[in-house]
């Protein structure tokens, strides 16, 4: 029983990271109808930035905040420079753009910081949380920061004018323009926020997976699985999907014989395919009906 509880709690902790990645993916998907394959690499690069800031002697939380601000600006810049010109281009052109972005960021990180694995600090420590062996303080911190982030985002989208405008621009762009919303800048803002959310995920998971240019590969696949499971059209679904995938991953690794750590990743892919076959809109997504 203790093993079960332990695995569920650990699953929730990593699920928090998947939830962040899924949320970042969904935010961009809502804005431009494309999956950002480079979301993980962007998060990895942000994490390296924060690491570099700390190497220069800036304390953890200051580096954390500074990284969020820089990521936000970088996200907006990527949209303005690379994806705004592609707005009306066919899907494959956009996919090529995402793959290019992936390759560029991955290689630049390798070039600047090389491919050796680096230790990444945690501000929460790794002692048992509240004296319990079930979960570490870092895992508790991961959950805590994610919950704070989600509450903040909920408040932003539900109760601020700019949040309302962003939702409107994502749901019916033409009507949004007709009430005076600059939809193009709302998309850029979405990119900025998604990049900052990815940065949070990267900085929280780095002490667990260690810092290196390929650290987010697996995490992003779980993030995609979470987004597909929850429904690509639902930010709320993405978050629920993230926690579910985290728990599912851990339980499958523990209890299904032969899965172990090595086969966890195929499980995520199997999950994506099963959801797409059985319930393509995901648990909370809307069916998009197009009139012809």
């Amino acid at each position, binding site marked *: 029983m203790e093993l079960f509880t332990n695995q569920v709690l650990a699953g929730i902790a990593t699920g928090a990271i998947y939830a962040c990645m899924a949320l970042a993916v969904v935010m961009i998907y809502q804005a431009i109808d494309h999956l950002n394959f480079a979301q993980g690499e962007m998060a990895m690069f942000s994490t390296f930035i924060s690491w570099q800031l700390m190497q220069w002697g800036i304390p953890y939380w200051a580096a954390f905040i500074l990284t969020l601000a820089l990521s936000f600006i970088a996200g907006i810049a990527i949209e303005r420079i690379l994806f705004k010109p592609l707005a009306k281009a066919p899907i494959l052109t956009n996919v090529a753009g995402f793959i290019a972005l992936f390759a560029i960021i991955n290689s630049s990180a390798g070039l600047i910081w090389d491919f050796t694995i680096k230790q990444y600090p945690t501000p929460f420590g790794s002692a048992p949380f509240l004296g319990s062996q079930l979960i570490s303080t870092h895992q508790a911190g991961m959950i805590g920061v994610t919950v704070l982030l989600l509450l903040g985002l909920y408040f932003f989208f539900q109760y601020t*004018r700019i949040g309302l*405008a962003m939702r409107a621009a994502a749901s019916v762009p*033409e009507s949004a323009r*007709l*009430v*005076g*919303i600059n939809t193009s800048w709302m998309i850029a803002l979405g990119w900025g926020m998604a990049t900052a959310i990815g940065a949070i995920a990267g900085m929280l998971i780095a002490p667990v997976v260690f810092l290196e240019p390929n650290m987010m590969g697996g995490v992003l696949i779980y993030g995609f699985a979470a987004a597909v499971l929850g429904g690509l059209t639902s930010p709320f679904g993405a978050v629920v999907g993230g926690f579910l995938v985290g728990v599912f991953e851990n339980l499958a690794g523990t209890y299904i014989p032969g899965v172990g750590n090595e086969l966890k990743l195929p499980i995520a892919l199997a999950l994506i395919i099963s959801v797409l076959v059985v319930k393509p809109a995901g648990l909370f997504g809307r069916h998009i009906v197009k009139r012809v």
Partner: protein
Amino acid sequence: MTTLLNVKDLRAYYGQVQALHGLSFSLNEGSLTTLLGANGAGKTTTLRAICNMVRSTGAVEFDGKPLNNRSTENIVRFGIAHVPQGRGTFTTMTVEENLQLGAITRKDSAGIVSDIERMYAHFPVLKQRHTQQAGTLSGGEQQMLAVARALMLRPRLMLLDEPSFGLAPLVVRDLFGILGKINREDKVSILVVEQNAQLALELADQAYVIETGRIVMSGNAKDIANNEEIRKSYLGY
């Protein structure tokens, strides 16, 4: 009477296809003007061209200021509210959020709150449903919501694209009554595009008839309604 909207030699294109062929008309401040015409005559395109939602040439002046090179979202800031064909409802948002979006360019939060109450007085059904998702409203209710959303801008000019489309005759009567009241009491100038010529002519003071992208007839709405020849040849009733 001053001219509020002046359109001169408007030509619009969808790709290679030209939809408007040098269309000119004007609308006086405070008037309720209607654009009539059959399917495909260019009524919707005219409204879209005024708001720069389609590639066009020619001059569009609002209150003496040119609108041609401004973006759609910028034109709203002149006080032009456009209710598009199909109503453009934000279906996944609540009724109240739809109203707030209508006022998103305004800065006076106290005025916005009181205007929402004013809309609920105009359209009591919206008050009953203010927390409901707008997509769950009936067609008539969504049309009311679209008009209310447009009014939240406190517009000087309202552009309405086929407000009667898909609505039951009684609902249409209701809606047109409200539009007349808004025009008289709130001093909002209205340009309404309609296929239902009979109803539109009852409501409007000025009328223009469009055929294949050109104005073929204009004048006082009553005169056009009373002229049997025009009615039979252009309006089909």
